[in-house]
């Protein structure tokens, strides 16, 4: 699917009012259809590299062109199937700018779930990995307070989804609810020009919820191969929190990752916002830092950058929001800084990029 087709579909959904009052269109008693999308435009004043929506994208805004719709625009559709007796399934297809430079739709979720009780379930198939506090809904702009998940936090982990089996267990202790998840399987992620493959993937995740406060911790481990290199090991630990009483919020996330070949990565962000009617202004500080002195790859500062972000979300209509986001990114390395691709010979450590993002998010 090319970009124009995706935009045409997204615009017709918006214009022809297929945005009912809630997510989910019941087709019959078994099937519910829903969808989401983002139409975005990004401007970057930095001519020595392209700013991207995540490190898998092959181009963006800045060097190739000043304005680009590719970092954030996407379109997704989902079918939920409920067969009763605890058996259900979900399939989600998403089209966004991919490593090949097109909008070919791919399966993001495709699994069947069996609930033994209301607190214990097992799923078989594909799921998005719960590695970060918001990684499992990062493609759904409407669920985020910002235009996108900070690029730095996403940089440490090459895999976004897992194919395998996982067990979900909910434990209630007084007013504290814990959602435990254990996942086994494998993963593959296409990069521009190479494929990252992981096997023996294990993910442990725990989300603690106490009223308006939540804490998320996760651990991930796998054996990976990348671009024909010998198999190596990857581990990642992450911890995040959110406090959201309704009128304001504060949230943060962090992770520490280790690749046998690429060394260590540490990334974190802190963000806060205030809700003023239908407007939610926010700020984010995010950073990625590679602390290893001499990894086998020889790349000692892979991904390093810092970003200061200010923006506003405006919930201007039912199931629709508009976001304006201003960012100042400090480039701390010439080894693939987290937000950039197509680095030019004129790029220098210490360069700053000013980035403006506009987005309309919708769900139906």
């Amino acid at each position, binding site marked *: 699917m090319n970009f124009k087709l995706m935009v045409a579909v997204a615009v017709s959904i918006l214009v022809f009012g297929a945005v009912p*009052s809630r*997510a989910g269109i019941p087709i019959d008693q078994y099937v519910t259809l829903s969808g989401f999308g983002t139409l975005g435009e990004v401007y970057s004043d930095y001519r020595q590299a392209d700013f991207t929506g995540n490190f898998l994208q092959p181009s963006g805004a800045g060097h190739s062109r000043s304005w680009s719709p590719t970092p954030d625009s996407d379109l997704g559709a989902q079918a939920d199937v409920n067969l009763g007796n605890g058996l259900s399934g979900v399939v989600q297809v998403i089209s966004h700018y991919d490593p090949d430079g097109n909008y070919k739709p791919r399966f993001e979720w495709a699994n069947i779930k069996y609930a033994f009780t209301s607190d214990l379930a097992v*799923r078989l198939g594909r799921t998005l990995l719960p590695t970060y506090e918001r990684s499992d809904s990062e493609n759904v702009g409407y669920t985020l307070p910002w235009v996108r998940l900070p690029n730095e936090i996403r940089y440490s982990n090459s895999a976004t989804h897992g194919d395998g089996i996982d067990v979900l267990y*909910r434990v209630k202790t007084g*007013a504290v609810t814990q959602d435990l998840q254990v996942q086994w399987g494998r993963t593959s992620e296409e990069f521009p020009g190479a494929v990252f493959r992981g096997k023996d993937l294990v993910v442990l995740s725990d989300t603690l919820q106490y009223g308006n406060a939540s804490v998320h911790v996760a651990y991930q481990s796998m054996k990976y191969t990348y671009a024909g290199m010998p198999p190596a090991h990857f581990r990642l630990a992450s911890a995040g929190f959110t406090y959201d009483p*309704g009128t304001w919020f504060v949230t943060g996330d962090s992770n520490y990752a280790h690749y046998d070949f690429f060394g260590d990565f540490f990334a974190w962000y802190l963000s806060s916002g205030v809700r003023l009617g239908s407007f939610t202004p926010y700020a984010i500080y995010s950073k990625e830092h590679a602390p290893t002195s001499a990894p086998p790859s020889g790349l000692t500062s892979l991904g390093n950058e810092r970003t200061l972000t200010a923006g506003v979300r405006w919930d201007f209509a*039912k199931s629709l929001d508009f976001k304006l986001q201003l960012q100042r990114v400090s480039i701390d390395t010439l080894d693939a800084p987290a937000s950039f691709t197509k680095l030019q010979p004129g790029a220098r450590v210490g360069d700053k990029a000013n980035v403006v993002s506009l987005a309309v998010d919708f769900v139906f």
Partner: protein
Amino acid sequence: MKTSALSALLLGVLAAAGIRAEEIVVIVNPAAGPISKEQIADLYLGRSGGLTPVDQPVGSAIYVEFYKKATGRDIAQVKALWSRILFTGRGLPPKQLPDSAAVKHAVAANPNVVGYIEKSAVDASVKVALPLD
């Protein structure tokens, strides 16, 4: 002059809204146990299971008022929270029923269902679990 006319108009609107805002109550089946305001917020924001919450039509006056009082959130915030649950395959938002009579009917028929209606609509088929004011 203009300012005082505007203030008078605002006061009038506020007074009218005050008179029209009816008290909302959370109802459960007469056979069901007690429930706290925290539990209601958790149920309607998808943070816990166990009981099955049912909704009034999204955007209706009682829907808006209920979420404001029970969860401190407006329609867009509630929508964003449920979108996250939906699009991570973790569940569907509460079933929407057409009116208070339908909510009462659903609650009366099943001890696991929780709903909310105007206080004036309560009858013997259901039990008031929690007044919201």
